[in-house]
């Protein structure tokens, strides 16, 4: 026993009794962020250089954990700043009264980027960089599988890309949620879901975290990924064989920073925001490991030649007028619809889609009007949605997801209905497509 204790305590004490105490509170600015070390380290270094005596204490949590953390610790808040990409997370925090109003003093920053206001109109959170959504792919993978370069979302719905595409679940990734919402607003509810489901029929996987997609594409496990632009740019900068394109239905949205309500070091928090928005802070974004789009148009003068510039390139994000209010009302409903109809039904939607592809390939060789009608029916069955756009933002349905005070439908009930709807429709679609294939042969 003594010997064991000696071994065990040797482990414990050979390494010192306590980890270093945190720095004294004066001059410590605490930020909760979802950004990786590659982003936070250069910013921290530059910020601390600009403000000697101030240290930036970076607490890394994914966006969801960060929101939960602020919620749980609000009674005795120790965090000064919240710093992440997804605007919806900031909306949630704002709604819960966890953010502090502030008016940045930085100059040279326009009001809008594309169609999107850079700062929260109510003054609770502020854009510091911009990002757009697009398609990244692994060149080696595409070459080995003889796949063409995609340009638009709808390209990914083509039969050649079957089983080659990956995306994060919108319920897990705020940035992916915005991609889905952008498609829904750009193409309309019906057509938007049709596009999304046609793409989804080709999905190889739906990952649970945003970075899962670029990780899989970088490894060559999956060929094509629907991602936010900087994942592709930073992978290129690290040397991976990656290409990227912005489809025309994209939107450029700001990545944000906000001061937490009752911040222990409010002055430090303000200094950090001012630094991020200053020209020096904006220039840090150009570093190869970060590669985000600055929101100060003047800073692009220092960018590398092929750097995308949303202020000069009118095609970037100009087509879709993104309406934050519409998005906000139905966030949870859109995510749950996606999960129940696609994420948890992936095998079903894929086999239906595969049957449709096969029938269409047969029809291309030998046309048959009856079979063509069946294929159209099959496609409509796959695209069908259990609820309309109006219902999606109606209080009855949205209320089931907010856990509000009113009694009403429970989320689990609705989800089960939608899942059953999807499963039946996909099975019918598959049957019709298989019937069409027989006719076309």
């Amino acid at each position, binding site marked *: *026993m003594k*010997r*064991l204790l000696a071994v*065990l305590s040797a482990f*414990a004490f*050979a*390494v*010192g009794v306590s*980890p270093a105490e*945190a720095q004294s509170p004066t001059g410590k600015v605490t930020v909760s962020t979802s950004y*990786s*070390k*590659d*982003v936070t380290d250069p910013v921290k270094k530059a910020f601390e250089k600009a403000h000697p005596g101030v240290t930036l*204490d*970076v*607490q890394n949590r994914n966006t969801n*954990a960060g*929101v*939960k953390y602020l919620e*749980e*610790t609000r*009674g*005795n808040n120790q965090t000064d700043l919240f710093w992440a990409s997804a605007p*919806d997370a900031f909306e*949630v925090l704002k709604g819960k009264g966890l953010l502090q109003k502030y008016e940045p003093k930085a100059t040279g920053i326009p009001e809008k980027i594309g169609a999107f206001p850079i700062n929260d109109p109510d003054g609770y959170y502020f854009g510091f960089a911009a990002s757009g959504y697009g398609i990244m792919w692994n060149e*080696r993978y595409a070459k*080995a599988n003889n796949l063409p370069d995609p340009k638009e979302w709808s390209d990914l719905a083509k039969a050649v890309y079957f089983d080659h595409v990956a995306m994060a*679940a919108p*319920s897990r990734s*705020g940035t992916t949620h915005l991609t889905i919402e952008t498609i829904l607003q750009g193409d309309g509810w019906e057509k938007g879901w049709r596009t999304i489901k046609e793409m989804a029929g080709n999905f190889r*996987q739906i990952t*649970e975290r945003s*970075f*899962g997609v670029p990780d*899989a594409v970088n*490894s*060559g496990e999956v060929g094509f990924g629907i991602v936010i632009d900087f994942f592709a740019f*930073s992978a290129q*900068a*690290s*040397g991976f*064989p990656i290409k990227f394109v912005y489809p025309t239905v994209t939107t450029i949205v700001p990545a944000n920073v906000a001061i937490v309500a009752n911040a222990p070091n409010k002055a430090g928090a303000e200094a950090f925001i001012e630094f991020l928005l200053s020209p020096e802070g904006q220039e840090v974004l150009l570093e*190869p*490991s970060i590669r985000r789009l600055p929101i100060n148009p003047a800073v692009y003068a220092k960018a590398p030649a092929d750097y995308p510039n949303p202020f000069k390139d009118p095609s970037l994000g100009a087509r879709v007028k993104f309406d934050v209010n519409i998005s906000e009302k139905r*966030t*949870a409903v859109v*995510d749950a619809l996606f999960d129940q109809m696609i994420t*948890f039904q992936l095998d079903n939607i894929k086999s239906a889609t595969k049957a449709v592809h096969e029938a269409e390939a047969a029809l291309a060789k030998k046309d048959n009007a009856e079979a063509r009608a069946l294929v159209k029916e099959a496609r409509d069955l796959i695209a069908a949605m259990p609820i309309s756009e109006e219902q999606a933002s109606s209080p009855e349905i949205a209320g089931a997801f*907010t*856990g509000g*005070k*009113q*009694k*009403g439908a*429970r*989320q*689990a009930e609705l989800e*089960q209905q939608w899942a*059953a709807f999807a499963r039946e429709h996909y099975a019918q679609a598959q049957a019709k497509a298989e019937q069409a294939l027989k006719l076309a042969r």
Partner: protein
Amino acid sequence: MEPPRNPLRETTMALVLPRREGFLSVWPGQLLVAALIAVILLLFLIIPVATVIYVAFTEKGTGAFTLVNFVDFLHTDLFVRSFWNSIYVSAMAVVLASLFALPLATLTTRFEFRGALIVQTLGFIPLIMPPFVGAVAMQLLFGRNGTVNLLLDDWLGFKIPFMEGLNGVIFVQAVHYFPFILVNVSAALRNIDRSMEEAAQNLGCSGFRLFRRVVFPLALPGYLAGASLVFVKVFDDLATPLLLNVKDMLAPQAYLRVTAIGIADPMGYVISVVLIIVSIVAMWASAAAMRGRDYATVQRGGGGLAKRKMGLWGNVAAYAVVILILLLVLAPHIGLLLLSFATIWSFSPLPDGFTLAHYGRVFGESFIYVKNTLLYASLAGLIDVVLGVAIAYIVLRTRLFGREWLDWAASAALAVPGVVLGIGYLRTFYGVQLPDGRPLATLWIMIVIALAIRRLPYALRACYAALQQISASLEEAAENLGATKWRTVRRIVVPLMMGGILAGFISSFATAAVELSATLMLVQSDTDAPIAYGLYIFMQSAAGRGPGAALGVIAVALVALCTILSHIVIERGQRATSRR
């Protein structure tokens, strides 16, 4: 004392032992220890978890008590499907893990086998799978376009879906968790009294029959301890299915719902409750399987089973089997090592080039992570073996009312998702202020306690199995000779359990060293962060993959080193005792 019985008959024929009332009576000291453990479990496990999952029992809107959410659970196809998938995967993972573990355990403990220590240590390493980067490494080797499949496709024109669907989960889980069986069965085999085997041989039993009828049954407590851990752990594990993008299993469903932002859906907590119940039932079942049997043996000090020599061909076959299994189960770590030296590794059997730069990048900053990891994990392991021995002793050697509940409550920790425990700690301890105004939950010691609670079941199972193998008559003898209860525990019980205690410490220590989910909620700053957290923040970007892998390698090497070290020290200690 009762008259001596034939231990061979007693153990192999599974006779029901008469209870010895005088010996198993309640002592005030025992009551105190039991109460203390109950308070610890209540404070650091049950209350924090209850503050989070009570939502499962409330009605939407009113907050009144209801069971309607459990009805919803049963009416949701997805959850029912997930439930059966989880059961299937866990059971199959136990089968596959046994196939990996039993040959390794038997060959290294029952035969003269050169390098047994190395095999034991290497066989343990799969348990230390750093988060994220381990999965990346496995995909690069076994994934659809991993090394193996790219080569297969090139040469033979087909691919093997190692990592797809439920079978992929079974494969990865078995590789990851088989060490639980290996460690516990090895400890149990070493504990078997040589005279049992000799008696059987004298009666004409040998070969596989000897193993099947005498040796394996005697090692059954160890096997059941390992197998039940594998079952429950696989049932409750969310990381592996999620990384393989399998979502229709129970634990991932709970996690996905608990961590969704802005949604106040009770289903995540309902699933957590189901997970906890299933885990307790599984632990109860494994205890029930042992009920009415006694696997204890009296004699000690013989140094375990006789090690026999193998013939030339026996040796060749044994080495072939061991090397094959090791190559398979260590593949993820070989991949990790390659990844940590790789420049770019994308859609190719091997990396494009090799570099030392990743180690250079993490070298400076990893020191603090290493220090914190060693401190946290060893403290957690220490707490776990102390609690584990105490709980095992109370359950097996006393008649305290409700003593099994200590065991079940501690085992339920396996089923609590780390994030639920993390949120529970914030909820319970963030409001408690220290004299300097800082919340209690921000102290690094809370990370240690969270780790200890999460890893307690590992140590507990090992200690439990070890105590089951010790005959109570040894303690009776000591007490008859005038030793106090405490002295008996200290001088007789604990030394005899040493192998199991070590197995428990190593399991808890090693897995705590790479734990992330609860830690992520509780780490307050970089200076308090363990390696797993450092790794996590690297693995969020393309450029961080190499450095992340390098940190992963450092973590694995570190834990392996500590494992070997403790093996050596303990073995030396045992040799010293048996010589005496």
